[in-house]
């Protein structure tokens, strides 16, 4: 029995550590205020409930024992869960006791989040002893619930999980969805309360029921389809469905500002700008295989170039003045120049460093980006770049009398260029040029020996990547209307690289999805306030561990993966066969 409870103890301690972490880092208190459902379910309370529940959920996970998957039965699950949950509570109580013993005022100079408010939260306003008791007992109860939950049949559990997740998501989006509903002129008071701003209980229940039912239906259908033998003629159906899906996607993309309103348009505008950058980087890193850590340099070049070419003003302490060099071109004319500049700079930077191996190239590109930012900030170039204060009054890209000032309009501008860039990327991928890049990425020397002029193709990759990146920069300048060096720090390069790798190196749909996930999610979840980057970092780590090949791996890597699965299958078969044999031998031995 002691051995059996070990996973519970381990999960409980980890869960306790998480609870303490959440408390110390200040999330528990900070998140208290936001109400998710009614006035009872708050973000902070949800956070408090989560560790014991999750700990027991993990404690009760199926284990592979002796090659067989074993799912603990309900009784064991209950016990294990309760142990795990109680331990989480106990760890919290120990922390609480420590705080009481040492005194809040003495801990606080070190751990700033240990405040009377935190103690209040953790003791539920009832004093230390009662608080500790509540933590342990409540933890055990939650843990037991978590254990039982895990023991429930998958087919029942899954839909409810989806339902709950939906409720929480909608509640977290309380500063977006209600306004969307408003803009669509839909009644929303039944769903979102005006007093708490969160979901109403009615709304939450309705959403839960609907989402659960929908999930159950979909999951059930999928399972059944998976079991059914492949029907004939399905490829055509698929083709038809794909067309329909693409059509729906296009219509949705086109109607997005009308449907979703300004916040989503704004976020999508940012996503679009970064998508352009990511597509550019995807050509350099994904197609041609050269690690580029300083892609924000093209972003900067595009933005400054368009600002200077279309007559933006310098910001100084004494008002706005014209930069020392500038032109007053039409935006679209300027854009052609900007793209050319981006390509030229890309090629020029690449030229001297073509021989460098991957990581050295990475640091050189990083240096290149740093140099660009420092020069843009410098007093030396201030008469042109405006130094720290930058340039403002960038053109709003008037086209036939139409300006792209509002987030909704800008969305269309950036959408158009994104579609263009996706098209170009896609065409390039499946062409002689794309093949040459691919060969180079696989093995540079052999590609050279097979007749691919690798130097030229590297430069070409940099040039095209740079051109697309500069285009992104130009649109960024139009979007913000202001160009400042602070917008082009290294972190932007890193974000773009993360988009490409997260999405799947070399995969255009992957890059699109990566941009949506990495840039839209933090924008949407602004509920996380100052903890945004903390959670962003954690999510980045988690996603990469769970899906190292990217969200949508490119076709070539997908093949690689299937192969892995196949080998795994083979191993399992061998393993199973051996087990069978061993079992038979054992049986034979046991027989008299």
């Amino acid at each position, binding site marked *: 029995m002691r051995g059996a409870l070990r996973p519970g103890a381990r999960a409980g301690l980890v869960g306790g550590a998480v609870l303490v972490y959440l408390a110390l880092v200040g999330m528990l208190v900070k998140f208290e205020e936001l109400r998710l459902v009614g006035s009872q379910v708050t973000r902070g309370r949800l956070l408090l409930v989560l560790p014991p529940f999750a700990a027991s959920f993990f404690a009760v996970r199926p284990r592979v024992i002796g090659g067989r998957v074993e799912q603990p039965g309900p009784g064991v699950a209950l016990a294990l869960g309760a142990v795990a949950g109680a331990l989480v509570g106990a760890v919290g109580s120990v922390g609480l006791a420590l705080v009481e013993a040492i005194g809040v005022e003495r801990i606080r100079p070190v751990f700033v989040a240990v405040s009377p408010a935190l103690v209040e939260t953790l003791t539920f306003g009832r004093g230390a002893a009662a608080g500790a008791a509540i933590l342990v007992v409540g933890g055990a109860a939650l843990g037991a619930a978590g254990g039982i939950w895990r023991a429930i049949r998958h087919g029942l559990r899954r839909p409810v999980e989806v339902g709950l997740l939906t409720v929480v998501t909608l509640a977290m989006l309380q500063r977006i969805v209600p306004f969307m509903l408003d803009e669509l002129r839909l009644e929303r008071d039944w769903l979102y309360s005006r007093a708490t701003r969160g979901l109403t209980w009615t709304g939450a229940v309705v959403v839960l029921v609907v989402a659960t039912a929908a999930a159950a239906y979909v999951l059930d259908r999928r399972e059944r389809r998976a079991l059914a033998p492949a029907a004939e003629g399905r490829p055509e159906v698929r083709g038809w469905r794909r067309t329909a899906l693409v059509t729906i996607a296009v219509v949705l993309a086109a109607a997005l500002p009308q449907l979703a309103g300004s916040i989503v348009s704004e976020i999508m505008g940012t996503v679009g700008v970064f998508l352009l950058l990511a597509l550019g980087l995807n050509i350099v890193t994904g197609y041609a295989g050269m690690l580029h850590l300083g892609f924000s340099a093209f972003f900067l070049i595009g933005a400054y170039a368009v600002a200077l070419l279309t007559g933006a003003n310098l910001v100084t302490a004494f008002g706005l003045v014209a930069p020392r060099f500038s032109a007053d071109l039409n935006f679209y004319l300027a854009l052609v120049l900007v793209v050319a500049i981006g390509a030229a700079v890309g090629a020029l930077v690449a030229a001297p460093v073509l021989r460098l191996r991957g990581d050295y190239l990475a640091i050189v590109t990083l240096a290149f980006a740093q140099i660009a930012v420092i020069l843009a900030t410098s007093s030396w170039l201030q008469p042109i770049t405006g130094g720290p204060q930058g340039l403002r009054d960038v053109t709003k890209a008037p086209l036939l009398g139409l300006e792209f000032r509002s987030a909704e309009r800008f969305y269309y501008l950036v959408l158009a260029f994104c579609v263009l860039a996706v*098209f*170009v990327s896609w*065409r*390039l991928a499946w*062409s*002689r*040029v*794309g*093949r*040459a890049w*691919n*060969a180079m990425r*696989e*093995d540079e*020397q*052999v*590609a*050279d*020996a*097979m*007749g*691919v*002029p*690798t*130097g030229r193709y590297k430069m*070409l990759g940099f040039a*095209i990547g740079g051109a697309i990146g500069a285009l992104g920069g130009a649109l960024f300048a139009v979007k913000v209307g202001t160009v400042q060096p602070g917008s082009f720090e290294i972190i932007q390069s890193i974000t773009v690289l993360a988009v490409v790798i997260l999405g799947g190196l070399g995969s255009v749909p992957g890059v699109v999805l990566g941009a949506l996930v990495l840039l839209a999610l933090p924008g949407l979840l602004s509920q996380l306030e100052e903890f945004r980057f903390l959670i962003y970092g954690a999510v980045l780590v988690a996603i990469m561990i769970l899906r190292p090949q990217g969200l949508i791996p490119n076709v*070539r*890597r997908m*093949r*690689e993966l299937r*192969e892995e699965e196949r080998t795994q299958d083979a191993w399992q078969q061998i393993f199973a066969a051996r087990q069978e044999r061993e079992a038979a031998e054992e049986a034979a031995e046991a027989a008299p």
Partner: protein
Amino acid sequence: MSRLLEVSGVVKRFGGLAALDGLELHVEEGEIVSVIGPNGAGKSTLFNVVTGLYPPDEGDVRFDGRSIVGLRPHQITKLGIARTFQTVHLFANMTVLENAMVGQHCRTRSGVFGAIVRPPSTRREEERIREVARRSLAFFGPRLAGYRQEQPAFVLSYANRRRLEIARALATEPRLILLDEPTAGMNPRETLEMRDHIVRMRDELGLTVVVIEHDMRVVKGVSDRVIACDYGRVIAQGTYEAVAHDPQVIEAYLGRRAVG
């Protein structure tokens, strides 16, 4: 017959060690020449120098009468020299067909504009690339045909990887092909098959072939002429029989008497 390849006085040093030490050899058009010699004799270095991967320290390499020293590997490939590698180097994640299509790179020219706009000329060219690649793969009969062409290269068996590497070289439409141990790691049946293919390369495709080979049955079966190397020099050349009985060659292979 004219001299297609002429290597004269080539020296290539790595650190203090001379892998090629004043190597002299030539290959006539339409010939099949085997290069033999013990490990470290400089055979692969010879290929690397000829194909431009290593610049020679001294000496000259002439192809079809012109010096090709200082040219980049892709330029040499474009002139008509193709090669395979001692250890297989495929583009593992590309399909079999794509691997062969890369070989056509130097014979085609459509660029970024063509890729994006895809005018009729590009489409025709792409069609041609595909055609040549298929033909090169078809050289090995059913081995690399059919569904295999859409598979990624890394799923191929070892022998097929060797074959694909040769097919990729053939797809560059060379005049001279350099094969670096094409039968290494193959079983006896596959080895014999490869021997026939080497002969077919000259007879059917009209290629000049230089092959580095350890398997003496193959060497005997294909060679018009055999060149034996040791210490970066040619120690004997001539017919198989002559070279095989050359005392210097025998000594090189059977080991030198230790000094003293």
